[in-house]
């Protein structure tokens, strides 16, 4: 279980307790947190669950697998802090993670 903070582009914060084994994307969708669309349902095919993770946490997360950066090319305003939240698996280690949502997903 990890407490994850999701911050909308307008600054509004949401905190969700997300079970281990779910993804950061699922944590948002299941708790009705706006700002993550996840059109493809988590198959790394759409880039609509894009989030920014600040350096302190970015470097602690498991590295991106092949294909995630290719998909991020197609995200809205990606930068070097970008991740697809469907590819971040929640574990106890992620307790306290903060992710920022982009202005929009599409």
């Amino acid at each position: 279980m990890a407490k994850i903070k999701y911050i909308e582009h307008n600054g509004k914060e949401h905190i969700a307790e997300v079970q281990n084994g779910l993804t950061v994307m699922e944590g948002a969708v299941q708790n009705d947190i706006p700002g993550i669309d996840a059109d493809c349902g988590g198959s790394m095919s759409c880039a609509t669950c894009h989030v920014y993770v600040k350096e302190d946490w970015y470097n602690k997360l498991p590295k991106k697998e092949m294909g995630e950066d290719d998909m991020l090319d197609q995200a809205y305003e990606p930068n070097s802090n970008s991740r697809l939240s469907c590819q971040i698996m929640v574990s106890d280690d992620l307790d306290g993670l903060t992710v920022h949502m982009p202005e929009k997903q599409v």
Partner: protein
Amino acid sequence: MIKTDVVIVGAGPTGLFCAHQLGIIGLKCEIVDNLDKIGGQCIELYPDKPIYDIPAVPECTGEELTNNLIEQIKPFKFSFHLNDRVQELTNENDNWVVKTTNGKEFHTPNVVIAGGVGSFEPRKFPTKSAEKFDGTSVLYSIKDKTIFKDKSVAIFGGGDSALDWAIELSNTSKVSLIHRREEFRGAPSSVQKIKELSEKNIINLFTKYSIKDVKGNGSLEEVEIKSEEGESKILKADYVLGFFGLIMQLGPIAEWGLNLDKKAIPVNTENFETNKKGIFAIGDICTYPGKLKLILSGFHEGALAARGCFKYARPNEKYRFEFTTASNTIKDRLGVK
């Protein structure tokens, strides 16, 4: 004007199998899809990715699944209307009048929306200023490449479309290629070619840059690009091309007066009819308690929606359930002995 029993919106696996079920029970249908090919997300997003949860098929790719579904409905000779999008839906004397972007018109008692997460559209530049040049000098696809001859063209993107067009247009235009990181996801041979053209100064290559602004009085004159550190550069450009892949937009479906829950259409689970009589929704676009976004669920939903369509297409007949193994009528429809 085409009269039919059912119009299916979307040629993904769910729409295709629903067409099969309509054929089995003796109904006709027409299938409309915005993409230029049959298969929906299976073909557009993951043609080569293996799928492991189609019942009785341990493993197949999106492309194989699509080809098999097309094969399965061949006996019914249904028409596909590709590269076209259903735009308008109006009710006329218990019939639905369905109008498409290409000006086609269908009259039908039933519409089955199997539209996935909506229609695929090119992802556009985030820059507001790009909007006023959209379609004239800011483009997301190329119809006529001769317009770029002897012009300055700034191409954004890192996939095959961006690389292929950069290589192709560099023969006759001054091409700049801009990508947000150093790695490209296009074919290795194209990436190699781009590097060669850049070394020979035939293409201006800018990696770790993205678009900041487009400028021009009347016509487009220049594009401003920025690095992540905030450094910006101005490039002369008559045209700006963006190749960022496709996104899915609900599009006109949102305007048909259907109940919507987020981006999905609530249905009943008896026949997958929406809040409008004769309009059904199946596959990823429909929602109900317990909904799973699985292809197999879409197949089930399509089978039941097809029976729902029967009632309105043949109001004076009673639907009779039959097995394909035993029914001679069905075997006739399939053209088998």
